[in-house]
Structure formats: C-alpha cells, structure tokens
C-alpha cells in the first residue's frame, strides 16, 4: 500500500468513527470530573457587578428569548442571574421573545424553586398570600416576617422565600415582541394585563413599583438568535435601559461591538460565560456550589482538544498526501 493511499484512507475514514470519538470525549470527563478552575472576564464581571449593586427597590427583566434547542447554553445564564436577583431581593420580571421561550421561563423558575436544587428558593404563589396583600403588607421584609409568624417555616436547605407578584412575575410571550418591548417603555400592564397564571398583574406590588421599563434597572436577554438585539434597538436606544446579553457561543463574537460602545453592560458568551457567572456567584457567597455550566467545562476542554487534533490530523493527511497540489486532487476534497 503506497503512502498516498494511507493518507487517502485516513481522509476517507467513515465519519461515524469521528462521531464515536466526540461521543467518548463528551462522556468520560463527566465521569472523572477534573473540576479545572475558570478565570472570569470583564465581559461577565460587568453583568455580575451591575446586578450586585441593585437591591429591593430596583427591578430587572430576564428575557427567555430562546427555544429549547439552545437551552443547554442559555438556561444556566438565566438561572444564574435569577438566583443572584433572588438572593439580593431584586424583583424579577420574566418575558419570552419566542413562544417556546415561555416554556423555558417556566422550566427555569421550576428549577430555581425546586427542593432538589441546592440552595433553592421556596415559592409562594400569588393567591397564597392574598390575605397579607389585602392587609397592606407588601414590603418584602414585613411580608416575610408576617408569613413566618403565621407558622410558615422555611425548609432546611432553602435559601429564602420568593413571593409571586412581589419578588417575581412571569409575564410570558406576546407576538411581535420587539413592539411589545417598545410598548413596555410606556406601560408593562397594557402589554401584559395578566401573568402566566392569569393573575391580573395590576394588583401586584412588583408592577405598582415598576410600571414601565423606565422604572426598571436592567434587562438581561438570554438568546439563541438575533432577538437580543431588539432589546438594544427598542429599549436601550429608546429610553436608555441598561441591557445585558446572555447569548449562545455561535453569536457571541458578533456582539463585541455592543460591549465596547457601552450599549450593553456585559455579555455572557456561551456555556463559558454562564460558567463564569456561576463562579462569581460562588466566590461571592451567593450560592454554595457552581452549577451545570461549570460542570460542563471539563468536557468542553476535552472536546476542544479533540477537535483541534482532528484539524491537525486532517491537515497533515491533506498535505502529506499531496492533495493540495491540483494534479493530485481527487474526489470531493
């Protein structure tokens, strides 16, 4: 067998072997668990520091502007910022730019309030604290004190209470969402008369204190498409609302101009961005452990090395086999 044939055979290897290789490098590091440390970048620190400065009198939006296809990247970002907000008692509005994003918002909220999640938040539904509202108790401190004095005990392992309509509201999805963003610069309630449980949002303390996007302090858009730019065009440029991006790796490089121009306060790019936020949460004592994004970074390292090796091997075979010379070029290469 001539040398050229070896290179040719190598280049014509059944791609299912490559698939198997990528499958193996994506599984093994999970079972071993290296836990390599991650350094944080100013792009992610920008968001963390901004959110960390906010408090109970402020409010943020988290846009679940992605479909299930990119949830592996976008979900940890949204979850990390939601936990940060809940910890600092910052009220959170949740919206969705795409229909299936509403389902993602529900899933994120379920995860953060699920007793199986480490450091979860115990959720109190809007109707469950109606009596306190009617008695005029809407301040978080007073509400928590009154709620607990009535015999409600925070479960062991829970990080705190979150009251629907006080600490968060899930608004959901509306068609032509870029125009909905524009509409919310005037009034949130006109756009979303009810939340996803069909509770009228007009009676919610969170809305009474933040009637429009002008009274909101940050919008984080977690997105797997160009939907995130709508927040810049229709909220940032219209009323100056600070925006943060949590975008998939595929799109992250496109938005560096927005960081340098100051149109966004920061950006989480791909799973790495989410992992950085998780590290910041842990380092600052907001969560006890890092989350799914950080745990995935070992695999990310292994897979990148594997793909770089594939590139090198592909090039060696290509040049050593002489396929770069036109006369030797065969087949589809």
């Amino acid at each position, binding site marked *: 067998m001539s040398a050229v044939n070896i290179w040719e055979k190598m280049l014509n290897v059944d791609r299912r072997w490559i698939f198997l290789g990528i499958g193996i490098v994506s599984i093994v590091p999970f079972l071993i668990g290296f836990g390599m440390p991650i350094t944080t970048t100013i792009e992610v620190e920008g968001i963390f520091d901004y959110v960390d400065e906010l408090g109970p009198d402020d409010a943020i939006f988290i846009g679940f502007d992605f479909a*299930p296809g*990119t949830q592996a990247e976008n979900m940890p970002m949204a979850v990390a910022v939601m936990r940060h907000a809940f910890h600092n008692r910052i009220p959170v509005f949740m919206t969705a730019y795409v229909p*299936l994003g509403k389902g993602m918002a529900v899933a994120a909220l379920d995860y953060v309030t699920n007793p199986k999640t480490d450091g979860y938040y115990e959720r109190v539904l809007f109707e469950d604290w109606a009596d306190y509202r009617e008695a005029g108790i809407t301040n978080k401190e007073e509400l928590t004190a009154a709620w607990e004095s009535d015999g409600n005990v925070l479960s062991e392992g829970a990080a705190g209470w979150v009251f629907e309509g006080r600490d968060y509201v899930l608004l959901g999805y509306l068609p032509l969402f870029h125009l909905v963003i524009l509409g919310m610069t005037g009034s949130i309630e006109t756009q979303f008369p009810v939340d996803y449980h069909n509770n009228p949002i007009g009676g919610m303390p969170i809305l009474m204190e933040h009637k429009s996007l002008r009274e909101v302090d940050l919008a984080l858009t977690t997105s797997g498409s160009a939907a995130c730019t709508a927040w810049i065009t229709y909220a940032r440029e219209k009323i100056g609302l600070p925006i943060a991006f949590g975008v998939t790796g595929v799109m992250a490089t496109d*938005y560096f101009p927005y960081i340098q121009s100051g149109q966004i306060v920061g950006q989480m790019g791909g799973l790495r961005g989410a992992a950085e936020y998780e590290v910041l949460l842990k380092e600052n004592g907001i969560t006890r452990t890092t989350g799914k994004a950080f745990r995935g970074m070992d695999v990310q390292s292994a897979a990148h090395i594997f*793909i770089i090796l594939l590139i090198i091997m*592909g090039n060696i075979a290509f040049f050593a086999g002489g396929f770069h010379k036109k006369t030797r070029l065969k087949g589809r290469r």
Partner: protein
Amino acid sequence: MKRTVPLMIVMVGGILMMVQYFIPHQYSQVILDNYVEWAPIVGAFALILGVGSLTRLHTHKIRRKAKNWQYSWAVLIPLFGMPFFALIVPQSLGGGSEVHGVHDFLFMHIQVPIQSTMFSLLAFYIASAAFRAFRAKSALATILLLAAVIVMLGQVPIGDVLGKWLPNTGLWILRYPNLAAKRAIMLGVGFGMLATNLKIIFGVERNWLGGAGK
C-alpha cells in the same frame, strides 16, 4: 383596492411612525401607545396562516397516501392535541389542572428533549467538518485557522493550564480585530436594514404582497 390600498397603508403608517419619533408630544405618544397595543393582537392572527398551511399540507399527504404519509399523523395529532388538552380537557396526569397536565408533559418531556438533541447533533457534524474541510490552504485560511484554534483553547479551562498567553491572546483577538470585523459588518447590516425599511415604506420593495392575486 388589492395592491394600491395596502401600499398606501404601508406608506402612511411608515411615515407616521417615523415622524412620531421626532415629535415628543402627548398626541404623538398616544398614537404610539395605541399602535403597540394593537400590533400584537393583529400579529397573533398570523398564526392562522401557519396552522392552516401545515394542516392543509399534511391532510393532503394523508389523503393522497404520499411517501411517508403515516408520519403526518405525528404532526396533526399533537398540533390539535395540545390545545385540546390545554383548553378543553385540562385535567392532568397527576390530578391538578395546569402543572403536570398532558399539554405540559408533551412540551417538557417530548418537545424539549427532541429539539435540544436535534441542535446538539451539530456538535458531531462540526467535528467531522473540522477534520475534512478545515485546511490551511492559503495565508488567509491559515490566519482563520490559527485564530480559531487560539480562541478555542483560550475559552476553555485547559487553555489556562497550557499557558496564560492563550486566553489573553484569544481575548485580544475577540476584543480588537474581531470587534473591527463585526462592527464593519454591523454597519453594513444597519445601512442595509435602513435601505430596506425605506424601500418597503415607499413601495419600491413589494415582495411582501405575495401571491394573493393582482
């Protein structure tokens, strides 16, 4: 009525909303407020087009017994099953009404895994493409390849282990040359969008009229 009036609506609506931005008057704001309240309502009905077309396509396939027609049931049954279980029979598998309902189950345990997995298939294909197509055939291709490799290593923890220069160089590429390229593209896209907006408003671009008769 068929073409001129829609074109007039576009032009008047477009100019009105464009001018509205520059007139910070109360009446001007009222126009915008009403518009943004109405637009999602009108837009919501566009779903009829999607549902109608999909239903027509798949009922057609079933009736004609076209190739793989059996799978059309897998589209039609959940398409109408979802609203049926959510709005008409919202009873759940666990006793409640919303959480753990059939509608919720179909979304969380079928839609989400399928869609996530379909996207993740791309990991396999990009690995295969890296082996078969990513060649340093010219100086420019080599630059692209080197930038890609540095950024790939710089973005993962192992990059830090291999040397601090890797993530630093990767970030420098992202923050400066990458930014320059993307800003140039962004400016091009921006001008393109503005030109398209004007072409639609002034009736130069009419493709949106579609094939609904002359």
